[in-house]
Structure formats: C-alpha cells, structure tokens
C-alpha cells in the first residue's frame, strides 16, 4: 500500500447501482479489517446523469479523499470519459469491452465543457473509449478490459435468469473485478454481498455468482499478476461502525430523546428523516432502582415523524410539539432553512427549545443540491430579524455528528432557545469506519421544568406560574402545554412575565436582557471541549490551521503527512459558532501564523474570527465548486504557504 492508502472509484449513470456497488466494495474492505472513507458525487437527477462513488482505505484511519484513483471501476462509457486521467501512476481502469467504440457524441449527459475538453485533448471531435484508454496508457495507467456480457451470459446459463434482468449487476462485476485484481478474499466479498442485500437470498445468490464468475474471468485473463497491489485481511480486536453522517445524526436524535421530527423533503437532509421514520418504534430501557436492573421494553417508545407541507410548517410544527413537551427537531438544507427564518425568531423570542439540523449544500438559491459547501455559517448566525440568542454547533466528522445531535437537545432545553446543528452534504453522505458510540458517556439534561406538583405548590403558596419570570438564574422554569394546575401564554410580540403583550419600555429592556443574557450563561457553562477541538497545541508551531465542520478530516490527514516531513502544525477546529469562544480563539491565535480553511467563497469563519477578536489570518484557503477539499490539493496549497510562496487567498478547484 502506498502512503495514501488505496483509492477506488466507481462511476456510472444515476439509478444503475453506483451506491449499491460502492457499499459492497467498502463493506468488504471494512470486513477485511481496513479503515474506510467513502464519498459520493451525483447530480440532482433521478436517472441517467453521471454519478460516482469514491472510496479510500488504509490500515490506519482515513478521513479524506485524494483526487486520484488506484482503481477506476467502470461499467459505462461516461465514467471513463470523465475520470480516465485521474489515475495514479500504475493504477488500473476496469471497463466493459462493450463500450470500446462508444464516442463522446454518444453520451448526451457529458457536459459540453467536459466534451470540449476531451476533444481539445485529441484535437478531434470523434473520440472513442479506445482512444481514451490508449491515452491513459500513455500516462502509465493500466487497462483491464473485461467482457461484462460474457460474465452475465454465464450467470444466465447457470441460473436460467434472463440476461436483460442481469444487466443491473454490471456494478457488481466492476466491484468484483476491482477486488479480484487486488487479490482480495472472495469469501469476504460474498459476506459483504450478503450483508448489503440484507440476506435477501435470491439476490444474494445471483450477485455472489456474478462475483465468482468475475473472479474467474479476471483470473483467466491473468490480470491478477498485472496489478501489483494486494489486499489481505487484517485482524481487528474490536468492532467498528461503518456509517454515514445522516445516519449518525438520526441515531443521535433517537438516543438524545428526540420524539418529534418534522421535515419537508430536501436533499441532502431527507435521508435522516426517512431513517428516523423507518425506526419510529423504539425499544427503551427501564431501570428498576430496587433491583438495580435494566429491562428492555420493546416498542414502548416512539418518534413521530411528520412530512409537512413546507418548511415553514416544519419548523412551526416542531415548535408546537416542543411546547407540548417533546424534544422536537427538524432537518433541512439551504432553501428550507431560508423558509424557517421567521419560525426561528419566534423560538428565540419565546424561549422555545428546538433543534434545526442544517445540512449545507452548494448555494446560493437552489444552487447545486447534491453538492457540498460550507456557505451558510453567517446566514444561520444572523437569520431572522431582531436580536435573540441561539446556539450554533458545527460537527467536524461523523462521530461528532452523533454526539452533537444529542448535545443540541441539551443546549436547547437547558437554555431554552433554538439550536442549529450545522453539518453539510459531504458529512451527510460520506461513510467512514469509526469507533462505536460511547453511549454510556452521554447525559440528558432537560433543564428546569415544572410539573403539576410544582405548580400545585406554587398555587398553594398563592403564586401564579409565570412563564417568563425574572429570576436570579436568568432562566425561567418551563411547563408543558397540558400540565395541570397552571396555564401560560406566549406571543411573538414583546411580552411580560406572564407572556402577555407589552410595549412598556422598561419591561421590554428587562425581557430583552433576560433573553440575551442566556447566551452569556451558555458561553460560561459550556465546557471548552464542546467549543473547540484543539489539536497539537503548541507555542512554536510552524502554522496554525483554523477551520470548522467537515474540513476536519482532510486537515487531520494533511497534518499527518506534514508532520512526517517535520512540520509542526497546530489545528484549531471551531465547533461552537454561537456563542463564539472569542477568548480562547484570541489566546490561541494571537501572534501566531495562522490560516483559515473553508469550503466556501468568502471565508466566513475568517470574518467571524476577525469580528470577534480583531485578528486576520495570514492566508485563506477556500473552495466553492461544490466538491469537498481533497488531501492532495490542500497539501499543495499548505505546502506553498509554508514555503512562503502563496498569495493571501488560495482557491482550490479540484474534483469532477
């Protein structure tokens, strides 16, 4: 294995099993004991447009991708047209010989720009796959032609299935061929197939057969010796989770006690809600303090997931559920968040806990719905008119997604305010092998809530329950709609302690201060480790990288490489965007050489840091073409910064 592990890419038309194929691949690899990182790129389209899945794996953890492949697994022509030249020296293209005569003009989904690029390379408007393969060879890329039809024919013969029914397994041929040239254990591949198809016997059998036949074909063609990488299983002591961001957040919500989720379909947030809906019936533990035993109550819990008519209904319905006492949340992406803005302000004004999981995607407007970006930081920080407290936390990887999802509800209920969990398309759809969740370490804190007995006592003491009472803690006890022995009122208008409308300037000031002070309380109480991850702190680092969100992985991989070259790199990953940990950040960055890395155009975190501390980075690395930052491109960018050869702003442009 080279020092960046193995990169594998499978491409094809949307709707032809790219994801399935990739799942089989990375599941097999993970089963063999490797650390896996996988990411998906696809168009906003249901069928036909080009889609690909990238996997990198290694015997040590992998957090990012590179723009190059060791193996390109294809089963259509477009993948080859688009990706052929991304091969590392000595890499392999696996392809179906059936496509050799296909020309660019035969592929209507090839963007004009890509087509022209190819034609330009050949100075010719009729470029075929065989031309492309020849070109690749000239760059030292090996080609592994396979007759996919022959394999399927054999399977058809053996099983009696119709050939036309089998073509949808072309993806498995590409996967199997990849594993075959890696000399990968066929038995593990078959186990992976079984797992991915959840044991559906007929399907598993057919796919396994395809795998076998492909292995045989690759063997018979002697390809095994032509490719010099071998992947043998390695032993693991403990199990890992193979999971993506959507799923980790959904699980976090379940564990965190979210019992009401609303959503309006939107990429890339929907998958989370769909996952929750599939798991709407929950098992819960019942702790018997006498016997000190835990019992599992099957189906005793549930989460109600509601598909609303729009995002305005999604946020306001979640607020209604929260007022009734449920931990409630909604998940969305840019356009949806833009519609939730008014509801967000209402939550702030009325101190209603609610969690909005916001999956950033390529903007502005409809933008690039299936591509990634970190373009919404400033927006979520300032969304809605007027001033009110909010907490914004940005997760950097899939583990953080899980724990932060839980934390969000604690913040929301403890400080009685809206919490925005900021993630992105890249995290949502990337898959990683991570350490199992340490659920034992998790705590639930619902803040101050009065029940009917508290209210009875209050009443007996001759006192009225006041939803917005001014008290010494700064946070008024909540009660839920329907709690006996009291009622409350709330209104989006400025209000008195009872929740009735007031325009009195004195009460207004007090109420405004009560609300805004909560953000100071939160800033004081939230522990540092929930605010930032400070990696390799040092007083004499060569460089401090500051970043937020999903760039964490690639930066860690980068630092790993640079440290091998002797560089001392410090990394400040900011997690809590509001309240902003200004003091700590200022302390760390003062008088340092530091840069900011962001997946957006304008360097929003850099602006935020300057607003809060006055400090400005030495360089800004940004990327805004809808693709995540790759290890190879950031390596080059940071290297040139380290060598003093860079301009202030560096734009990364990698990705297909």
């Amino acid at each position, binding site marked *: 294995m080279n020092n960046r592990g193995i990169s594998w890419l499978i491409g094809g038309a949307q709707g032809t099993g790219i994801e399935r194929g990739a799942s089989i691949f990375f599941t097999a690899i993970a089963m063999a004991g490797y650390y896996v990182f996988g990411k998906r790129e696809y168009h906003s389209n249901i069928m036909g447009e080009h889609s690909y899945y990238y996997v990198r794996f290694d015997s040590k953890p992998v957090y990012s991708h590179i723009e190059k492949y060791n193996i390109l697994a294809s089963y259509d022509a477009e993948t080859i047209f688009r990706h052929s030249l991304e091969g590392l020296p000595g890499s392999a293209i696996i392809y179906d010989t059936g496509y050799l005569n296909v020309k660019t003009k035969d592929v209507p989904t090839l963007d004009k720009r890509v087509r022209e690029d190819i034609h330009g390379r050949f100075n010719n408007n009729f470029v075929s796959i065989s031309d492309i393969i020849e070109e690749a060879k000239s760059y030292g890329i090996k080609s592994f032609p396979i007759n996919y039809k022959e394999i399927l024919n054999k399977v058809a013969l053996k099983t009696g299935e119709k050939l036309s029914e089998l073509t949808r397994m072309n993806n498995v041929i590409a996967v199997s061929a990849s594993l075959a040239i890696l000399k990968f254990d066929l038995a593990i591949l078959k186990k992976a197939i079984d797992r991915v198809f959840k044991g559906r016997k007929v399907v598993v059998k057919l796919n396994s057969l395809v795998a076998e036949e492909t292995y045989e074909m690759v063997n018979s063609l002697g390809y095994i010796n032509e490719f010099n990488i071998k992947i043998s299983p390695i032993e693991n002591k403990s199990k890992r989770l193979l999971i993506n961001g959507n799923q980790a957040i959904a699980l976090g919500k379940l564990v965190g006690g979210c019992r*009401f989720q609303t959503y309006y379909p939107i990429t890339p947030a929907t998958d989370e809600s769909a996952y929750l809906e599939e798991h709407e019936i929950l098992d819960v533990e019942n702790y018997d303090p006498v016997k000190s035993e835990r019992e599992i109550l099957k189906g005793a819990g549930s989460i109600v997931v509601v598909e609303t008519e729009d995002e305005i209904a999604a946020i306001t319905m979640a607020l209604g559920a929260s007022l009734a006492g449920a931990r409630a949340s909604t998940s969305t992406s840019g356009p949806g968040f833009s519609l939730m803005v008014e509801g967000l302000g209402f939550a702030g004004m009325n101190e209603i806990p609610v969690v909005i999981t916001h999956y950033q995607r390529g903007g502005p407007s409809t933008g690039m719905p299936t591509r990634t970006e970190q373009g919404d930081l400033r927006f979520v920080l300032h969304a809605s008119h007027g001033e009110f407290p909010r907490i914004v936390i940005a997760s950097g990887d899939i583990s953080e997604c899980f724990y932060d999802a839980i934390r969000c509800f604690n913040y929301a209920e403890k400080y009685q305010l809206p919490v925005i969990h900021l993630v992105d398309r890249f995290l949502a759809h990337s898959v990683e092998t991570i350490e199992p969740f340490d*659920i*034992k370490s998790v705590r639930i804190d619902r803040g101050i809530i009065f029940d009917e007995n508290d209210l009875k006592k209050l009443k007996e003491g001759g006192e009225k329950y006041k939803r917005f009472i001014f008290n010494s803690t700064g946070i008024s006890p909540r009660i839920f*709609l329907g709690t006996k022995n009291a009622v409350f009122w709330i209104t989006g208008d400025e209000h008195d302690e009872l929740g009735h*409308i007031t325009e009195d300037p004195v009460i207004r000031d007090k109420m405004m201060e009560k609300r805004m002070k909560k953000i100071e309380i939160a800033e004081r109480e939230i522990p540092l480790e929930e605010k930032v991850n400070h990696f390799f702190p040092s007083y004499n680092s060569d460089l401090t990288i500051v970043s937020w969100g999903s760039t964490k992985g690639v930066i860690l991989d980068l630092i790993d490489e640079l440290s091998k070259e002797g560089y001392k790199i410090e990394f400040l990953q900011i997690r809590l965007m509001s309240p902003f940990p200004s003091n700590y950040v200022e302390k760390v960055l003062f008088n340092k050489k530091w840069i900011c890395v962001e997946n957006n155009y304008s360097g929003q975190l850099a602006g935020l840091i300057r607003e809060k501390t006055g400090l400005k980075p030495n360089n800004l690395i940004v990327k805004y073409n809808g693709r995540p930052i790759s290890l190879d491109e950031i390596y080059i960018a940071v290297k040139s910064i380290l060598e003093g050869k860079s301009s202030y702003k560096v734009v990364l442009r990698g990705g297909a």
Partner: protein
Amino acid sequence: MELKLTDYRTEVHVNWCPGCGDYGILSSIQQALFELKLDPSNVAIFSGIGCSAKTPHYINAYGVHTLHGRALPYAIGAKLANPELTVLVILGDGDGLGIGAGHFVNAGRRNVDLTVILYDNGVYGLTKGQASPTLKLGLKTKSLPKPNINQAINPILLAFASGYTFIARGYAYDVPYLKYLIKEAINHKGSALVHVLQPCPVYNDINTKEWYTPRLYKLEQEGYECIITNETTEEEYLRKISLMIQKANEWGNRIPLGIFYRDLRYTTYEERIEARIPSYRLNPPAKQKISDPFGKPITYIDKILEEFLI
C-alpha cells in the same frame, strides 16, 4: 372544584374596538369551554397574528399566539405530541386564507382532531383594513381607496375541497348559536372548521351588523342536514354534496348559518399514527421518558447499531 364561567377569563384588558364582532366570538368560546367543563389546563388555544389573534390572551387556557398564518402547524405539532389536549385554532381571514392558505389546505388533508375558528371580517383588521381574501370582488369598504380587485375565497368550499370533516358557519353577534357550533366542532373527531361572520365596524362598513341581521338564517330551520358516513350511498352523497355546495354558494338576500357538512368516514391523523405505532396514545411524544434518574438515555439502539457494526 366546580369551574365557573369567569374561570375562563383573564385579567388582560381586551383592546378590540368598541362594537367589534370579536367580543362575541370570545364569549362564545369561553362559554363553550365552560359548558363542556374542560379543564383550562387541558386546553390549548393557538392563533396567528391580527386583531383576532389576540383572543388567546383573553382566555384562561394555554394560549399560544404564534406567527401570521402559522397557527395551524403549531397547533398540529402540539396536538400530535400530546393527543390528549383539546386544541382550538383561531384564524383571521387574512391570516388563515391569505398568508396561511397553504397550511389551511394541507391541514384539511390530515384530519387532526382540532377545531378551527375562522374570524371573517373581510379585511386585514390590525393593519388597517386592506381587503382580505374573503372580501367580494368589486366591494369598496371605507378602508379601501379603490374597489377590491380580487375575487373572494369561499371558506366553506375551500374547507370542503381540502378535506375538513366538519364545516359550520356562525355569526359573531349570535353568541348562543356560535357557542353551540363551537361545542359541536370540539366534540367532532377530526378537523372542524367554524367559519364566523365577524363585523369589523371600524374598517368594513359593508358587512355590518345591520347588513347581516336581515339576511341570516339557520340551515337546520330548513331541515338541512349533511352527514356523510360509510353507509352513505354514492347517490345520496352526490345529492347531499350538491345541496351543500348550493348552500355554501348562497350569499345575497339570504345567508345560511349552521352545520354545512359532517363527514364521519375518515379516521383522525392520531388514529393513523396509532395504526403505525401501537404505543402512540399510551405514551405519546410529549409524555415519554427519555432518560433514567441519572440522566442516562434510555433509548435502546443496540439492535439498530448491528446494521452498522463491522
């Protein structure tokens, strides 16, 4: 302790204009709650924004005065999280059928068990009398510089097309009758609409008390009844619906009040959830315990995690 009518009132100064129809609606609601002997602590009243939307502050029950047009989704969220609540939703005509029309229509599809009271004064009261979606084409109230340029929405028809399973119309100054309708609506299982003709003496000088009084009559006085059940034949259904539409369209010398439509064929949304989640009513979202006494989460996901463990 027996509850008195005054127990449904608050100390908040009612700041509607003298003669406003809203006073009558407020009384009707208070009396309905009183006569149904509903515990104020089990009633939640939602409203949007407008003169009408101030109502909850004047009623001693949980009062959630939300955003313009959005009362329905708030209310639905609360009701689904705690299906034991009695939920009332107060809509202004601009609030509910202008900015909130999308929620009005889509709430009909769900048939959540709640009661919508639509205050129809033909104008946007709190913003000084612009035409609301129920003002008829060509009318010029004193608050309008020019005659109304839009056709009117017929709330009865719109509710029918949207799937409300109980549709009635009351009049703000006929408190006993309106109270009766509200009680029926609360007792109805599913989404109920009470459309209330509400004079706004300040801005709407057309649909005034004087204008309404001679025109109003009650459907049941004509023997009208429209109840649809699973037993109703196709033919009967069409006959009833035709008459209903006819009555809904009636707006001239005679204007009907009463219960236009009751459809008993549909389950409520809560029942549909229960069909998916058997424990839903026993342990609804708002009532679920989510942690043990030490704050440890009690949701058991080990089974789910197997899908991911490798």
